[in-house]
């Protein structure tokens, strides 16, 4: 007698997992589902002009790496925001070198040094004072609206590390802002 598995017991891939594992054309659905969230997150981190370009890079990278998406996760958003976070880091590294003239001559500081400077200067200063790893985890949580578990997925680090990084970031920010926020 053949052994059958009840259909409702088989794991059903999420729409993101199915699209990422399917034919390449299905990647467009992933773009449509998550582009605005990724671009919005990037706009907060690097400003709208750069975010337009960088968001495209994120999805181009995701398209190439779509085979590496862990289908156990419901949504691709944490994975995409993880790519976005790494893109921000490498963008700044590249930009530091490419636009070193800008820093020297126009002297507005390195472009997009850590986060956009045109909002609350105290908050900006506090964020820039954070260690990069702590800042990345913290901003994925508060600007990317990711739960701790999703931040862990995005950054490919243990959950406990996420907790400690965000805790440390909060503590330092609170101290920087005089405990007022």
């Amino acid at each position, binding site marked *: 007698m053949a052994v059958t598995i009840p259909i409702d017991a088989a794991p059903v891939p999420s729409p993101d997992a199915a699209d990422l594992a399917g034919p*390449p*054309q299905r*990647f*467009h659905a992933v*773009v*449509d589902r998550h*582009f*605005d969230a990724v*671009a*919005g997150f990037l*706009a*907060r981190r690097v*400003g*709208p002009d750069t*975010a*337009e370009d*960088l*968001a*495209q*890079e*994120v*999805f*181009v*990278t995701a*398209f*190439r*790496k779509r085979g590496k998406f862990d289908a156990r996760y419901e949504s691709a958003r944490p994975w995409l925001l993880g*790519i976005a976070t*790494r*893109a921000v*880091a*490498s*963008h700044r*590294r*590249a930009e*530091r*070198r*490419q*636009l*070193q*003239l*800008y*820093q*020297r*001559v*126009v*002297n507005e*500081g390195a472009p997009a040094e850590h986060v*956009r400077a*045109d*909002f609350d200067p105290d908050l900006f200063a506090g964020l820039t004072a954070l260690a*990069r790893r702590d800042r990345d985890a913290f901003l994925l949580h508060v600007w990317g609206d990711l739960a701790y578990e999703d931040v862990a997925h995005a950054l490919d680090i243990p959950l406990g590390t996420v907790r400690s990084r965000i805790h440390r970031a909060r503590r330092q920010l609170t101290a920087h802002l005089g405990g007022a926020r």
Partner: protein
Amino acid sequence: MIDTLTDEQLASARARTHERVNDLIVTPRPRRSRKLPALALVTTAAAAAAVAFAPSGAPTRPEIATAKTVLRDFQPQPLPTLGAGEYYAVRVVQRKAKGDDEGLDLRYWANADDKGREVAILHGKLRTDDPLGAAAKRLPPGAKPLPAMSELPTEPKALAAELRERAMGVRLDKREPTTRDYVLVAMQMVTDERGTPPEVLRAVFSFLSGLPGMQLVGNVTDPLGRPGVAVAADGDQDSHEGIGVELIVNPETGRPLAFIHYRDDVSKPWLQTIRTEGVVKDTETLPG
């Protein structure tokens, strides 16, 4: 205020993303064409002639042009000697390869006494207009000025150590600099407002010639249409770090013309840094 993208910006960027995904689906991983054959042909022909007339009678192998041989054979010309009332003018424009953004436009004029003027224009708007050297004094507290190219040693070991230190200084991690990192450091010869001395250029070219993975692109024209010879180094195509870099040098003068950053499969120019230099009679005239 927190930055946000407008609906129009989002729609436009999303549409471009779909187009790029379509490009990748249709033509996965395109590569920049290498224009090696033309240059190789010239060099090979010359080498063949050398074989034919070798006085010793012992034939030597003809040398095929490579990044190594091309870089090694550049003969950088000296900087101009300025007379009374003359200025060495440099213009460096850094802009995106596509779009109407005028980017960053830096202009320098230096006379024989190293006095002159420097102007910075960003996105078409004048940002600074100062005596030469003023900007370097306005660095934020704690910021280190960018070491000048002219300060580089020309002795090979000392040069290698100095370039490594500069390359490590711009890495986020502690890994050894890649060839691409070194080419990025050498990019400063394109942006050097005073002009890099020929002996330093020669030493840097020689250093680059010994790096693994240096590629000869071959005969090209720079973004201004000037003929040049390009060498390149690629990054990792699978990550945002996959930015290929290309240095274009005038083969006649051995002096840098432009630097191009490639993004997305190292197939599409993304950022152009273009240098023009020359001798002028005042601090208004741009180098030709």
